[in-house]
């Protein structure tokens, strides 16, 4: 039997599912036919100070992640240090973007499946409170991104070395108030997700995430895994490789000497649980859901926990914030630089070679969904064992839900 989902709904970008069920095999292929745009190719010949603006356009959901990662890679190449102020603002910016993206994934893209609706638009009448909560929280997250970045989609203030303009003290204080006002909503979100029935599917595989001793790693740390990986950004290409696959415009990543792996909120919590905020940890305790957890459907719950943590973490940064007037003179220097950060969907890698005129000579970018594409298929093959005697419609929906648990950003993965 062959089941085809030509265009998977409620994910970003164009992908399909091709499911084969027979006595001999159970196979699910994630057909990624989103058109490539060849960013790594046309970045060659562009200048160091416009990289962030260009790579931002890889994705409209996670532009901030590409902006910050590329800036850090360029700064790494040219030997530029950033101030504590810039680090703090970039952290709040990144976390506001995570919150926004997670809310999109939880409420708009995934929850309808669990409540029996085809979209959150259809659910708006009978679940007005839930939809209002989602919109309210998302507005706060986007507003904070805009207060630091100028606007939510493709922010404009981030530059090599810092920002063109920073929020005022009054605005920073307002951000804290806005975050406090959605804290309760965040806990409600975690409660809601922990109350839903998730398919009982688990497949132990290698989970990979950025990790840092002192904080829940977003913009800095080493890349670690549940199977002993522990590398710096500069060594990424010694350990993680990609191969072309016929049915996907996104390359499939794998770890040298090993196999596929998973990145994302579930991997992050599996690896960095102890760095979550107290309230985030408390919410996990209350739920009865245990970590480490290898059921990809619990990624939804992981996103909700992260939202709680990010709210707390941003408030902490704001409370300790010290303003300082900064003007940076950037000296162009040739160099090779890289950076790995945690985008909302998982680990993101940027690498640049810059010549002495500040022109890009080479670029290498691997977004989280490219890291995940191969693992999604391995999960599909295994998940089908639980589904194969269900009606076709049900198999299709359940497989889509597995894909949506990964919250794929297909345009990113192809770039």
């Amino acid at each position, binding site marked *: 039997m062959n089941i085809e989902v030509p265009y998977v*709904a409620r994910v970003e970008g164009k992908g399909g599912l091709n499911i084969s069920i027979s006595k001999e095999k159970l196979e699910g292929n994630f057909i990624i036919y989103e058109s490539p745009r060849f960013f790594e190719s046309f970045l060659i010949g562009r200048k160091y100070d416009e990289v962030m603006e260009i790579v931002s356009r890889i994705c*409209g959901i996670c532009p901030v992640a590409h902006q910050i990662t590329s800036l850090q890679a360029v700064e790494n190449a040219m030997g530029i240090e950033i101030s504590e102020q810039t680090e703090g603002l970039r952290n709040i910016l990144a976390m506001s973007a995570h919150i926004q993206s997670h809310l999109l994934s939880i409420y708009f893209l995934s929850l309808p499946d669990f409540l029996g609706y*085809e979209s959150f638009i259809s659910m708006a009448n009978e679940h007005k409170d839930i939809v209002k909560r989602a919109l309210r929280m998302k507005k706060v997250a986007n507003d904070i991104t805009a207060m630091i970045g100028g606007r939510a989609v493709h922010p404009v203030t981030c530059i090599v070395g810092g920002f*063109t303009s920073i929020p005022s003290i009054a605005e920073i204080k307002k951000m804290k108030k806005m975050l406090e006002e959605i804290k309760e909503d965040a806990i409600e979100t975690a409660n809601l997700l922990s109350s839903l029935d998730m398919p009982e599917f688990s497949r132990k595989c290698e989970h990979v995430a950025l990790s840092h001793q002192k904080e829940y790693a977003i913009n800095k740390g080493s890349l670690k895994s549940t199977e002993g990986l522990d590398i710096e950004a500069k060594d990424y290409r010694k350990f993680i490789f990609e191969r072309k696959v016929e049915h996907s415009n996104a390359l499939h990543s794998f770890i040298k000497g090993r196999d596929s792996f998973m990145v994302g909120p579930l991997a992050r919590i599996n690896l960095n649980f102890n760095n979550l905020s107290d309230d985030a940890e408390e919410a996990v305790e209350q739920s009865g859901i245990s970590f480490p957890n290898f059921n990809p459907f619990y990624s939804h719950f992981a996103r909700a926990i992260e939202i709680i943590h990010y709210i707390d973490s941003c408030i902490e940064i704001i409370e300790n914030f010290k303003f300082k007037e900064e003007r940076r003179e950037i000296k162009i220097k040739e160099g090779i630089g890289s950076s790995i950060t945690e985008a909302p969907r998982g680990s993101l890698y940027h690498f640049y070679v810059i010549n002495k005129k500040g022109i890009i000579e080479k670029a290498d970018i691997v977004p989280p969904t490219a890291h995940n594409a191969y693992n999604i298929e391995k999960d599909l093959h295994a998940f089908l064992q639980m589904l194969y005697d269900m009606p076709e419609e049900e198999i299709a929906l359940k497989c889509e839900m597995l894909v949506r648990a990964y919250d794929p950003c297909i345009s990113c993965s192809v770039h």
Partner: protein
Amino acid sequence: MKTKIGIFKLTGCSGCQMEILRMEDIFLKLIDIVDVSYWVMVKRENEMQWDISFVEGSVSTAEEKKEIEEIRKKSKILVAFGDCAIGGCIPSIKNFISSHSFDGIEKFVDVDFTLKGCPPSRENIISLLINLLKDIKPRIKKYPVCVECKYKDNACLLKQNLPCMGPVTSAGCGALCPSLDRICEGCYGPMSNPNVESLAGIFKQMGLSRDDIIRKFRKYAGTSPEFYKEAGNEY
């Protein structure tokens, strides 16, 4: 009967769709007024019927060419939604350095309205939609970013010897970047009848190289008739 809206994606980043989701404060009102009949990023059940279509993204494959032709056939009104749909936007840089092409949809179908920007601001989207629903001819801003800068009493960045693209760039963003001490990079594309040669000459006087100037004009709207010469003219 509510007007049916279809939202489509070709080759692009989904940023324009995300700007629709940026209408958090009025979203419930919006879905009350219109029937979003096709939006695969948000809905699992989609109708193959719509009155007004918003198409995000450029055409870069044969399949997409077929897709836009089908969308046009079924649409009463077709909106080129964002810079990619207008002229390819940032990926169109590739057009100048290879035989691969990212084309605006107007190359293949008639377009009724365009929403400029990367992304077009939510205010511009709302304004166009309201006009279309009320059957009022939308007012299209043809003046440059400079006008919006002046309204905000910004200190002119060109006067500070910075290579701002404002004078040739279409208004609509509220002079977002110059208001945040960043030079305009031209992301809304050309205004009407821009004096591109003059601005390129000013950039040259500021010390920008020929390559610097080409990069600036090529970035967002290099494929536009107004910018293509300063963008390198190989397209």
